[in-house]
Every structure is written in structure tokens, then in C-alpha cells.
């Protein structure tokens, strides 16, 4: 099986984020990490390859810094990487990102494309599904299990409120992967060493520019959301806070 994994670099979960002057985006000088569901998507691709042989290719779009997610993926066992490298990729909407990916892989033949089910930054949950539409492939979202069958694949979709569903589908297909589908591996020292010699294809904006167009949606303003609730802030030493909380639990909430 030849599998492409779309991965994205996003601000680290605990990174303190600040707005830029214009209030349209965050200040970029924060630490970054791999978007969590994308890490699970990569792990799943590596496991499928281990079971059925094949190739795992990773792709990302973004500035030079985002190469880090590809390096980590190569260290974990991906065979090669494709980097659409340009600052401008950060601002593309989901439609354009999908178009850029489709253009970058037009000479490849994958059986499966995995993406994380959504990113921690924009949270569109769209890029994978749009990519499937552009390629004319079947797709399924929020996937928690994948098995190869004679006719294609059988996947387990997560649904709301603890429900699941199995779906049989043909390949090639795009699947968006949910966190928790598997247990993540760590890169080994030897893996990190080997990664240095693995192929990394760079794709410049100019090479895909003809495939994309103006964004079809625009962030007019980014801001800290307004609080809707009256919140009592409890302060003091841990001992004082504990006493205050017990007072609230007993006298205001009648929970003790």
C-alpha cells in the first residue's frame, strides 16, 4: 500500500498565543509541534505499511520551520517527504490547501491518503474531504480503525455520543483520522540518523500557483472571545484556596 499522510505544524498546546498588531493572526514567534491527529494518521500509515508492505510519504505546506514535522515523520519511519515551502501557505483556506496538495502529487499514485480529522489552529475539518473531491476519490471521516479487504478497505467511523459504524469502501480513498486510533511510537536514535538521508522534495509556491486561486473566505478579525459568564476568581495560597473552595462547596453549592 502506498499511503500519503498530510501533516501540519501548529502552535504547541501550552504555548501562550498573542495577537498580531492588525488583529488578524497570531504572532508567529511561538513554539510549534505536530497537529495531534496528524501524528495518529502517520502512526496508522506506518502500521499499515508494516502489515501490508508499501510506502509512506508525508506532505506538509508552510514556511521553513514546518519542515520539522516532516523530519520527525521520516525519523519515525516515513520513506520520503514533500514540503510545499512558502510563508504564504499558512494563510490559504482549506480549498486552496487541498488544491495545492492535489497539484503537488499529480504524478504520484497513492492507494490511500490520510489526514488528521482537523487542525488545532484553524479547525476547519475540511482539507481532507475537499482533497478527496478534487481527486474524485471516496472518503470517510473520523476514522478509528482501518482494515484491508479484497475489494478495498473496511473502516470504523466514530459517530456522536459513543456510537460507531463500519463502512466498506473502495480504494483509492482519503481518510481523516481521529486521535486515539492507535498508540504513538517514538522516533529511535537510529531512525533520527536515517532520516537525514531520506528524500525531501521541495515544492515552491510558483509550482502550484496556477492550481490555486484567491481565498474564498477571509478572517476579518481575530480576537479573544468575550466571557459570557460571571466567574468568581479564587486566589491565595493553596491552603487558602482549598478553604475558600470548601466554603463555596458547602455554603453556595450545598455539595458537602
Amino acid at each position, binding site marked *: 500500500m502506498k499511503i500519503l499522510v498530510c501533516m501540519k505544524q501548529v502552535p504547541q498546546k*501550552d504555548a501562550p498565543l498573542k495577537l498580531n498588531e492588525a488583529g488578524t493572526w497570531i504572532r508567529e514567534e511561538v513554539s510549534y509541534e505536530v497537529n495531534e491527529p496528524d501524528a495518529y494518521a502517520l502512526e496508522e500509515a506506518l502500521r499499515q505499511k508494516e502489515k501490508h508492505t508499501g510506502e509512506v510519504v508525508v506532505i506538509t505546506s508552510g514556511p521553513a520551520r514546518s519542515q520539522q514535522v516532516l523530519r520527525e515523520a521520516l525519523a519515525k519511519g516515513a520513506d520520503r517527504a514533500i514540503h510545499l515551502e512558502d510563508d504564504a501557505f499558512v494563510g490559504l483556506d482549506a480549498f486552496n490547501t487541498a488544491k495545492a496538495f492535489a497539484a503537488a502529487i499529480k504524478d504520484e499514485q497513492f492507494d490511500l491518503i490520510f489526514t488528521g480529522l482537523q487542525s488545532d489552529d484553524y479547525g476547519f475539518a475540511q482539507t481532507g474531504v475537499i482533497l478527496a473531491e478534487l481527486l474524485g476519490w471516496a472518503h470517510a471521516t473520523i476514522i478509528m480503525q482501518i482494515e484491508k479487504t479484497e475489494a478495498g478497505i473496511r473502516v470504523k467511523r466514530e459517530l456522536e455520543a459513543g456510537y460507531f459504524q463500519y463502512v466498506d469502501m473502495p480504494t483509492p480513498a482519503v481518510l481523516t483520522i481521529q486521535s486515539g486510533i492507535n498508540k504513538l511510537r517514538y522516533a529511535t536514535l537510529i531512525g533520527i540518523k536515517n532520516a537525514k538521508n531520506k528524500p525531501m522534495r521541495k515544492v515552491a509556491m510558483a509550482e502550484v500557483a496556477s492550481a490555486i486561486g484567491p481565498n474564498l473566505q477571509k478572517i*476579518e478579525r481575530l480576537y479573544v472571545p468575550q466571557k459570557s459568564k460571571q466567574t468568581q476568581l479564587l486566589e491565595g495560597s493553596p491552603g487558602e484556596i482549598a478553604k475558600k473552595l470548601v466554603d463555596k462547596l458547602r455554603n453556595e453549592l450545598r455539595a*458537602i
Partner: protein
Amino acid sequence: MADTILVVVEQQQGKLNRASWETIAAGQTIAAATGWALEAAVVGASIGEVAVEVAGKKLAKVYAIDAVVLGAYTPDAFAVALKQLVEAIQPKLVIMPHTYQVRDFAPKLAASLGRSLISDCIAFRKDDTSGQLLFTRQMFQGKFAADVTFQSEAPWFATFQNGSFRGDHAEDGAAPAPVEAFAVTIADGVVRNKPEAWFKEAKAAVDLTQAEIIVAIGRGIKEEKNIAIAQALADALGGEVAASRPICDNGWLPMDRQVGSSGQTVAPKVYIALGISGAIQHVVGMKGARAIIAINKDAEAPIFEIADYAVVGNLFDIVPPLTEEVKKARAGA
């Protein structure tokens, strides 16, 4: 292009979900702001009764797309059917609830028409001076909100997060809206996925919905062994331990203790969130709690937006003395 808004409601086995009424309420709000007409579409097999139920709301018209291939949901059939409706009636705006089902097909539907979807919105506003329609959505896991506009020709597509509008605010019509059957053609071979019936994993061992007090832990608990700290507090209070998704993904607690959109929905008297950031998929499962106490070291964590009592600090410093104080209070009571 007609000046209309089309609401696509969602039904499963002949039952409308709550998000459908919320999306009708959203449509009525947008219709009031823009002066556009509001229509609805019901998609499925044998959905006649559902269409009549929807037609009781204040709507100009209800389209019933009734076909056997739409009985078991597939993204191929739904996207093709709705594409045909949108091409035929040319609405300006199409809105849907941001459910698992909609997020599976809506990006495909919009892309198949060369149009854009603003997904997972929480609010809508029309700017009086510019006349722009602004759709608000969360970004960076709820740390920020963004006002987003469409930059293309209509039709525009938007989905609304559960709970963004109140379903009980969906107004009834003076008279039932006309229901019009809309016939679609879905050729053989269009539908590629073969879905099976929904099922639940092993029966839940604990019923969190009955718990009066819940002590919930998130990734801030750091290590599996630290769960004992939360368990001690829950025991002292006579409550249950619950968790955010990453804790259950790690296998540290069973899935039946997960609170949120893919887990349990709870409404206890007191919900104590320890080291939980407050991502919307968690919040939808617990915002109905009568009181929310949040302990988080990040003063800007979104959980504080919905907390009644906020403690900014390290849970490992605060929880052990809190457990002791609770025990003392109970012993004295």
C-alpha cells in the same frame, strides 16, 4: 440567484436531532437580519412525516428529498442530492448543523460547486455599515474567535456548532409551510461507500449522567499515576472521576468516563475540571453542569469562560489540600 437561505436539517431514522432546530433558529436570525426568505430541506428515505414536522416552523417552504439511496447516509449520495437542489433553487446561503454527518459531506458539497464552507460557526452578525455578513468561529482550540467573511459569489455554505443558537427559539409559523418534493437522480455507481448499522462499544460500567459531583481530569494531570490525586478528591466528595478525551485515548481511564461530544453528556450539581483546557468538544458534554469549578495553570484557558469558580494555579499544589479540607468539613458536618 434567489434571495433565500436554505437550512438543511438532519434526521436519523425519522427523528430530527436537536441541532436541526438550532439551525432553523439560526436561519430565522439571519433571515431577520438580511430580509431573505428562509427555506428548509429534509434529506433521507421515507421522510414525509419529518418534512411535515419541520414545516410547522416559520419557513417559506420545505423541500423533501426522499429517495431509497438516501436511507443509509453516505457522503456521495448526500453531496450529489444537495448539489442538485442547490443548483435548482440557487439559494444565497446554505446552513447546516456542524454534526459528524455534516462535516463528512459538507466540504465535498461546497467544493463540488466551487464554493466555500465556513465551518463550525458559533455566531452570525451583519455589519450595519459595510453590510458584510460576519460568521464567527473559534480558532486555536477556543483560545481565539474569528469573524470570517465569504469572498466568492454565492451560494455560500456555513455550519453552526451545537448550542450556538437555542432550538426552543425556533419560531412556529402562522400556518404550516408548503412541503415540496424534490426529485434527485443518483446514478448507479455514484455511491461508493457501504455503511453498516450504528453500534455502541461494550456497555458502560459507570453511569456518569447520574453523578451529582464529577471530578474531571485533563492532560494537565500529566501521568497516569497522578489520577490517584483526583480520585482521592472524588472519594472525599462522594463523586465520580471523569476525563477529557486524551486521558481515555491514552488508556488511563476507560472510555465510559470520557465527557464530551464523543463521550458522555453530563449535568451534575458540581463539575470540577482539573487541567482541562476547555476545547468545545469537551465543553458540549459538561456545560449543563449547575456549577463549574476550574483549576488550570493557564489564566487564558477557554475553560475559564464557562467556569463559575476559577482557580489559576497548579493542580498538584491545590488538589491535595483541597481533599484534606473536604474530608475535615465532612467529618465535622
